[in-house]
């Protein structure tokens, strides 16, 4: 469960719809004309009522200050906080991190990037510290650039790891080519759709060597996803 604290109703709505569609249901407080104390009390009540995994927090809330709110949250809970803000200076970013934020995303933000960061924080939070990420019995070691399945291990190229990592983060959900491309650009792999397709088919070929026949599935007109490999 995510908690979205954002005063613009449209942004709140769209963020919550998008995240819901990608497997993250959320709660969103929807009145911000109250004082800082009232808002803090409301957020604390929400944190106690439901198990919140992560908070998306806007800094400029109507009458309140997101940075102060973050500090208040930190005093009662260690839930990860990602700041969303229209401000661009390094100083604000630094203040955000000092107030106990885990990440800082600038508006207008890219949704796939936001999603990837949320997933990354959640994966890190839920797993014992390790460099590997798992999906359906396959594990991907990001640092070593290795993929293992049923005792077999194979080296992957840097770019192949980047593609797989995003698919792993979104396991069980369809990833559109657009959002995959957006994520890859953010990670310095500047592909267009043709190059992505070439990379995907090469990746599939290599996974076949591991015995994974149908691990990356193409859903026509929608995108790709990783799924249980049914032989």
């Amino acid at each position, binding site marked *: 469960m995510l908690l979205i604290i954002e005063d*613009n109703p*449209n*942004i709140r709505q*769209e*963020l919550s*719809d*998008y995240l819901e569609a990608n497997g993250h249901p959320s709660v969103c407080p929807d009145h911000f004309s109250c004082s800082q104390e009232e808002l803090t009390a409301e957020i604390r009540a929400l944190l106690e009522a439901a198990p919140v995994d992560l908070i998306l927090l806007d800094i*400029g809330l109507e009458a309140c200050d997101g940075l102060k709110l973050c500090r208040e949250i930190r005093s009662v809970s260690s839930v990860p906080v990602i700041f969303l803000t*229209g*401000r*661009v*200076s*390094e*100083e604000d970013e630094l203040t955000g991190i000092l107030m106990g934020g885990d990440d800082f995303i600038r*508006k*207008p*933000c*890219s*949704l796939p990037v936001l999603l990837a960061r949320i997933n990354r924080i959640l994966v890190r939070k839920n797993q014992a510290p390790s460099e590997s990420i798992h999906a359906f019995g396959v594990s991907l070691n990001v640092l070593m650039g290795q993929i293992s399945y049923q005792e077999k291990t194979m080296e992957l190229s840097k770019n192949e790891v980047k593609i797989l990592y995003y698919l792993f983060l979104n396991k069980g959900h369809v990833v559109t080519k657009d959002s995959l*491309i*957006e994520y890859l*650009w*953010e*990670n*310095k792999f*500047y592909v*267009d*759709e043709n190059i992505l397709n070439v990379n995907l088919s090469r990746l599939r070929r290599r996974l076949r060597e591991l015995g994974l026949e149908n691990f990356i599935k193409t859903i026509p007109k929608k995108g790709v996803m990783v799924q249980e490999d049914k032989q």
Partner: protein
Amino acid sequence: MIAFLNLFCMIALSIYLVLMGNSFFAVLPILIVWIVILAAVWGGRYYRFRKRTIQISQKLDQLDQKYLIYETLERPQNAEEKLCRDILHTASKSMLEHVNCLKNTQRQYKEYIEEWIHEIKTPITAINLILRNHPGGENKRIQKELSHIDYLVEQALYYARSENVEKDYFVKEFPLFDALTPALMSNRTWLLEEKISLKVEETADTVCTDEKWLTYIVNQILSNSIKYHRSEGAWIKISARREKNGVFLVIEDNGRGIAPEDLPRIFDKGFTGGIRDNRKSTGMGLYLCRKLCMKLGLDIQAESVFHEGTKMTIGFPTGTYNHPDRRD
């Protein structure tokens, strides 16, 4: 005036004394003594006056802010000087008040612009999210226009800030290519749509500067390269090389290029060039680039072969000056 008065008195006294029966030779010593005393007094006064003017003009030369001269003046020595001094005081005071008033207005305006830009980001983000979540026929086109709005808004922000970069910047050491990613990201849809192939030859070079300002500069250069791309087989190449005196970031394209007569003027404010389709051009982009580069102590150079391509080079001097930890 005083000279005439003295002369008149001298003549009147001599005539009077001669008429009273004194010989002219008896009067002569009086006149000589009179002239000598007068000359001595005037000479002394001239000497003091000259000394004072030289002193004041030297002080004036040494001052950075000439209008502060009033503060350095010594006590007035006579009524005339006092009057001048008072006039100077009133005049400079009223000028300072006026300047301060303008400075205040300008500062408030700048703050308002910055605040406005942060505010406008909210609706831009909202529109962007709505478009992303509800794919439909015209979304791509709206999104493209929206990213152009965002680009122009950023330009306004950086222009408002460019006046006092030194107050806003945050120098640190970072991998050069990290600053490129956000710039490439914001031009991503445009690049993909125009089918411009992008060759990024990443290196591990690090530079010491303000990352956000650099991203902005690269963004400006990239958007020019995209705007003036050729219709077939367009490419943009980004590379870096390390030399003895610094790291150089090179952004090349095979676009329309710049006419040789325009090349020296592309960094001028408001220059939009001859052949270009100027509807979208504000003549601000490259001007801001050079201004920011100068403030950050970076070097920016443009080379171009007309109709064949443009090559922009940003130079980051290696030295200790900009390094936060190595500065003495």
